[in-house]
Structure formats: structure tokens, C-alpha cells
């Protein structure tokens, strides 16, 4: 009986130790200390970009506040500031049409492209600084989902928001053309992987002016805005 009890106690202690060790191990894998120098440099660059973006946004909001104060001291309504903010957010959400410089990514032919590749490409374009994106003229918004459905002759067809995507696939993104191109075509990047692993050869071209359509307002049925 005492044997049983002591065995139980020791097992318990052992189990506890194992759990602690696992947590240390897991923590280690996610800690900065476990990352290579290259990856740390990437993270550092990324954070610098994020900081610059935040600085711009702070400046923008401060200008907005000054404007409101001026309007108020002149006894004018804030209609202008509101419409400016509304117009900017409509570009961000994909509601309104936009234009600007950027890149186009074209994938032609009977490629073995999977819908996951489109999800990856869109994600990689945002990582590279895209400000607005469309796939075959369909604007990417908050709710845009990529999928697939059965096509003719037991093939599968890639879909964007449930609508079949027809070849050639053309993804257009507005942003700094050079940064966007570099983000996609760098060594070990997404285009490199598509080339070497799947023999898919998307063509990336810098463009002076791209116009992307607006998707119109989104409507929500379940989400409520908190005051």
C-alpha cells in the first residue's frame, strides 16, 4: 500500500516536471533567443516599417484634430473633415474605387495553381506594402474569401467570393511598385517557390497607373458596433 502511494507521488512529481520542461521548450521555440540572425533582422526591419506607419497615422490624426478645432472656432460644422475621413476609409475597406501605381501579377495557361496559392499571394502582397488589391477586377475586401468548386471534367475551379475565377488570373495591387515587385520575386520568396516547387511562372510587372473597382458597402448581420 505504501509502495503504491509512493509510486503515485513520484509519478505525479515526474509528470509535473515534464509539463514544466515542455513549457520551457515551447517558450524557447517562440522566444527571440531561438531565432537566427537573419530572422531577427527581418523582424527588426518589419518593426521599423510598422513604426513609420504608426508615426504617419499619428500625424494624420493630429492634423484632423487641428482642422476640427479651426472649424469649431470659425463656427463651421465638421462636414468637410468627416467626408475626408469617410473617403479615406472607403479606399481602405475596398468600398470605393481607387487608382495609383503598383504591380500586376499574371498567371496564364493550364497551371497547377491551387486556391491556397492565391491566398498566399494576396497575403504576400499585403506584407510587401500593398494598399489595395483586386483579383481579375474583383476588389479584395475584409470579407473576400478564396475557395474552389468542382469544374467540368472532374477538374476544380478557383473561386473568389464563390464566383469562378477564369484564366488568365490577374492580380493587381496598388503600392510602391519596386517594393511590391521585390517582395514577391526575392530569393526564397513566393514566386521563387512557385517556380521551383510547382513549375508555375507568374509574371510580375510594375505599372504606372492601375485603377481598381470598388466593391460597394459591406453589410453585417451578426456583428454590432460597440459605442
Amino acid at each position, binding site marked *: 500500500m505504501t509502495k503504491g502511494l509512493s509510486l503515485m507521488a513520484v509519478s505525479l512529481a515526474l509528470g509535473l516536471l515534464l509539463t514544466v520542461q515542455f513549457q*520551457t521548450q515551447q517558450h524557447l521555440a517562440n522566444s527571440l533567443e531561438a531565432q537566427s540572425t537573419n530572422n531577427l533582422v527581418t523582424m527588426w526591419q518589419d518593426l521599423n516599417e510598422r*513604426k513609420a506607419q504608426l508615426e504617419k497615422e499619428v500625424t494624420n490624426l493630429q492634423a*484632423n484634430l487641428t482642422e476640427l478645432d479651426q472649424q469649431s472656432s470659425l463656427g463651421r460644422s465638421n462636414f468637410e473633415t*468627416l467626408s475626408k475621413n469617410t473617403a479615406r476609409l472607403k479606399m481602405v475597406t475596398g468600398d470605393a474605387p481607387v487608382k495609383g501605381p503598383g504591380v500586376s501579377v499574371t498567371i496564364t495557361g493550364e497551371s497547377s495553381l491551387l486556391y491556397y496559392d492565391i491566398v498566399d499571394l494576396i*497575403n504576400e502582397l499585403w506584407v510587401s506594402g500593398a494598399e489595395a488589391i483586386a483579383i481579375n477586377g474583383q476588389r479584395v475586401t475584409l470579407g473576400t474569401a478564396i475557395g474552389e468548386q468542382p469544374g467540368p471534367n472532374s477538374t476544380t475551379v478557383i473561386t473568389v467570393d464563390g464566383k469562378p475565377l477564369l484564366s488568365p488570373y490577374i492580380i493587381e495591387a*496598388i503600392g510602391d511598385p519596386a517594393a511590391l515587385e521585390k517582395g514577391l520575386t526575392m530569393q526564397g520568396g513566393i514566386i521563387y517557390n512557385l517556380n521551383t516547387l510547382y513549375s508555375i511562372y507568374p509574371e510580375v510587372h510594375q505599372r504606372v497607373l492601375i485603377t481598381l473597382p470598388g466593391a460597394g458597402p459591406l453589410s453585417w448581420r451578426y*456583428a454590432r458596433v460597440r459605442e
Partner: protein
Amino acid sequence: MKPTWWHISLTIMGVACGVLISWLYLTQSTLRAEESTAPNARLIALINHLEEQTQVMENRLVSLRKELEGKQQRQTGGEYRVTALEAELRMLEAQAGLREVAGPGVVITLDDNNSGALSAQQANPGFYQPDNFLIHDKNILYLVNELKRAGAEAIAVNNQRIVPSSTIRCVGTVILVNSARLAPVYEIKAVGDPEALEKAIANGEEFPYLKAKEFPVKITRVNDMLIPAYKGGFDTDHLQPAA
């Protein structure tokens, strides 16, 4: 002498102890080795500093947005076109992720397959591939896409709000969402029709795949929950309205 349950359990425990002690030793020695790499220590200090700075700026952004909102409301003055515009702006802010939203939906939790990693390491240390037991950025990216397919309206991953331009990726073994570092357990919250979302995810591709590989994954329906606001900014330097 016939081996009894006592001998067997003692043997098992002895082996387990041995494995644990050598593993502890290995962990400790990697820790020590990493501490001594000076250039990385500098980079890590830089990263930690930048993370603190961006956090301070995020909080500043949140308070500026609140101040702006308050001023806008005070200056509306009951003018009809202004009130209408304000309602539109509020909805746009919510959909851009700048406002907290509430609603029903699902919560998906994902964790690294720690017990699988342990048994794999014990069974065959030479063939142990740690990557096979970790949740990767793509698992989360594809789950978020599946949630959108099923009609999710607002999504957050470990309380990082998914906005139109959100990015989900990894650098090394660290998953970044909106450039913020995440740590397991990963929790994806999505507002939408709870039944439709649960069905789509449970019968989708990513969730069953992870389940089959014995990752601790779970999906729960929720009657009401909060999705936090996005604290970052939006790049619009190259964007112009088009007619």
C-alpha cells in the same frame, strides 16, 4: 524472479527520468549557447525596444481616435447631412477594424502538438522533426480564409483584429499577425452565424487536417463575444480615389 507490476513501473519511470534529465540538459545548454551570441543579443535588445515603442504609439493612436470621435460628435450640431455622414463613418470604422464589435460566433483554439512531440522524440529521436508538431502561420492563414468563406464578419487572432490589409506570416518559428508576435495557445475568434461557421470549419480542410494529426484543436460556439479594435494604421500613400 517473476517481474511484478512494481518492477515494470519502476523501469518505466527510470527510463522516463533518464530521458527527462538529458532533455533538460540539452535545453539548458542551448540556452547558454544562445546567451553568448553577442550580435543577436544586440538585435534582440533593438527588437524589444522597437516593440515597446510601437506599443506606446498604438496606445497614442487609440487615445487620439477617441479624442477625434468626441470632437466630431460635439460639433455635429444636429445638421442632417452631418448626422448621416457620421453614421456611415461609424460603420466604415467598424469594418476597417477601428471599432470594437460584438456578436455571436465561434472560437477556435489551436496548440502545438506537445504530447505528440514528446512521444515522437522518445520513440525515435533521430527522426524527430519538431516542425511537424508546431502550428504554422499557414494553418492560421487558411483557417481565417475558411472563416471568411463561411461568412465571418469580424475576426481576431490572439486579439489581433483582422483588417483588410492584415498579414499572417512567420519569421523563424514565430508567428506574426499584423506584425505582432503571437505565442501559443492560438485563439481565433470570429463573429457570424455560429452554426454555419462551426459546420464549415469542422467539415473544412485545415481543422480536420490538424485534428487528424492529433493537434489539440477545438471549436466552440459562442452566443456573444467582443472582438477588439485594430490599433495600427493604414498605408494610403499611393491611393487616390478613382471615379
